[in-house]
Each structure stands twice: as C-alpha cells, then as structure tokens.
C-alpha cells in the first residue's frame, strides 16, 4: 500500500518517528483494533486510534449515552444523550479521520458472541466497567490467542496490563471475579474524569505499539497509578502455574457465562 500525499501530511508526526515511519503508518492503516466498551476508557482510546489512522476500529457497546457519562467519556457530546454510544462514537471518529472504517456492535459481549466478534481483530482493548466482562474478555482472548489490553479504574486509581499469547493473563493475577457488589464500580464510588483519559490513552498506546512492533509492551507487568498523589508503580508479574485458564492444569477450557458462575469459580479457587 502507498500513502497518499494527504496521508503523508496527516500522519507526518508519526512518520517522523524513527520507530513508526512510513512502514509503521502503513501497518496502522491496515490494522484492526476492537474496543469493548465505549465509555471512560474506550472513548479516549477510540479517539486516539482513529486519529492515528488505525484502518479498522470495532466498537462494542449496547448502552446509550447518559448525561453523567459526559464528565469523562470525551467522545460523546451533550447532544448525544440517549443515543447509542457506538453510533455517537462512530460519528466523531469518522469526522476526525475518513481513513478509518468503524464497525459497530450495539450489544454486550457474552459467552456466545465474543469469539465471533474478536475473531477478525488484531488487538483488543478492554474498556468495560464490570468484572464478568473483564474475565470473559480475558478468557476469550487467551482461548483464541488474541492480544489484549486490560484496564481498570476507580476513584483516582488506575491499573493496566497487556496480554499477548504466552505472557501472564489477567487470571494469573486475579483468579476469578469478585462476588457481585464486593468491589465498588465507578458509578458507586466515583472516578476523576481525567484518570479515565490517562488509562485509556495508555491502552491506545499499547495497541499502537503492538501493531508497529516496537518497544516493550506492558506484558508481565501491571502498571498501577494513583492520580491523587500522582504516583506510578509497576509490579512485575509472571505466568501463574495455577492459573485456571493458562496454567499447567487449566479448569476453564471453554467460555463460561459471565454473570452466573462467579460463585462456582470462587469456590473452585478457594477450595
């Protein structure tokens, strides 16, 4: 593929980077990234990936825009309240960059649809707000050998890690979802809007660096930050031989329904 003159100008600040260059930009234009959740994390990730010229971007979200989303979900505007988030986001991304093809999935991921949705994509960004979805995304990506970025935020805190086949997965660190209600969500405990932006852009940068194949991804590392004191920390993690999905004796060999089996999984872990 050859970049047009307009593309050379649009992406000139990428092309100037030795680690991106024209070849890296062409890889971005041919890449396919899926963003699950078009909210606090997905909104900044979607904008940066669209601006970067990622050729195909999938958006999965069954929700509509709520007024209380606008404090941090920067891809949605006041006039978008009550619209489908994936439609609101697609419109902004296409306006930002006509090179980008946006594919929308106005639904929630579940054990029956996720494998087919992620199949066509090179990299997946988890921007969901709930643990059943986070574990389902991890399991689907591990079982299908798809790289993905995990992200979680709460109050002033964020944490993120990247999985590629062979590296530690989310379940290596957190064995099973917490019981419903045990860990507060952003809607219960609050979130500083900019924290979502900080984390979502880290996830976007992981996707971009995975595609261009440069640098060191956040694999086998958990990046943790606290924006109240603005402190960053990295915890080295490694594959857990007792991990229920990628360990030596996996107990999860097919996708499990996200909501229902939390207690089962916990009792198995704690047994």
């Amino acid at each position, binding site marked *: 593929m050859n970049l047009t003159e307009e593309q050379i100008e649009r992406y000139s600040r990428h092309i100037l980077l030795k680690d991106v260059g024209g070849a890296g930009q062409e890889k971005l234009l041919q890449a396919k990234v899926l963003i699950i*959740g*078009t*909210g*606090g*994390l*997905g909104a900044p990730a979607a904008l940066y990936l669209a601006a970067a010229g990622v050729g195909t971007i999938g958006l999965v*979200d069954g*929700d509509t825009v*709520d007024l*209380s*989303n606008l404090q941090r979900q920067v891809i949605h505007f006041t006039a978008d309240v009550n619209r489908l988030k994936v439609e609101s986001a697609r419109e902004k991304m296409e306006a930002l960059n006509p090179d980008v093809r946006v594919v929308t999935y106005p639904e929630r991921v579940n054990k029956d649809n996720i494998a087919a949705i992620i199949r066509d994509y090179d990299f997946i960004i*988890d*921007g*969901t*707000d*709930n*643990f059943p979805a*986070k574990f389902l995304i991890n399991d689907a990506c591990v079982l299908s050998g798809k790289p993905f970025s995990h*992200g*979680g*935020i*709460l109050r002033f*805190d*964020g*944490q993120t890690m990247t999985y590629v086949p062979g590296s530690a997965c989310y379940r*290596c*660190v*957190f*064995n099973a979802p*917490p019981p419903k209600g*045990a*860990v507060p*969500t*952003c*809607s219960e405990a609050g*979130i500083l809007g900019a924290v*979502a932006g900080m984390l979502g852009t880290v996830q976007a940068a992981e996707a971009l660096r995975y595609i261009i194949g440069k640098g060191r991804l956040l694999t086998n590392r*958990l990046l*943790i930050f606290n924006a109240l004191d603005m402190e960053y*920390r990295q*915890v*080295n*993690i*490694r594959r*857990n031989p*007792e991990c229920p999905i990628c360990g030596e004796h996996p107990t999860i060999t097919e996708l499990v329904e996200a909501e229902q089996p939390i207690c089962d999984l916990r009792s198995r*872990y*704690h047994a």
Partner: protein
Amino acid sequence: MKLVINGQEETVELQEATVAELLRYKKVEMPEMVSVEYNGRFLRQAEHETVRVKDGDRIEFLYFMGGGMAG
C-alpha cells in the same frame, strides 16, 4: 522485620506473622478481595493463613479495579 510492601521498604512490628496477619496489621480492607504476590509468586487465598513472611520479603497487595464503561 523489614519488608518491601508495594514497592516500599517498611519495618513492621510483627514476628513470625502469616500473610493473613500482615493483611490485618496493614488494615487492608476486604483481605479476601486482595491478590497477594509474595516474592514474585501469587498466593492462593488459603495460603494467606499458612505462608509466613520473613525479613526481606517482597509483598504486593493487588486490588480489583473495574470501571471504564458505564455511568
């Protein structure tokens, strides 16, 4: 004894303590919701009661963090 907890060296007034006792000493809320990495290895929940910390150990308390999408 001196431990490195969440990357910070600190002296704890404990002797022969289990990980569970350390979690209580550090006043960690909902210790059953914390994933503990002990010298680079993730502990099973049951091991919190059996693994004893010793001088120089490195311990990470990792918390669940959701968030992202909904309002």
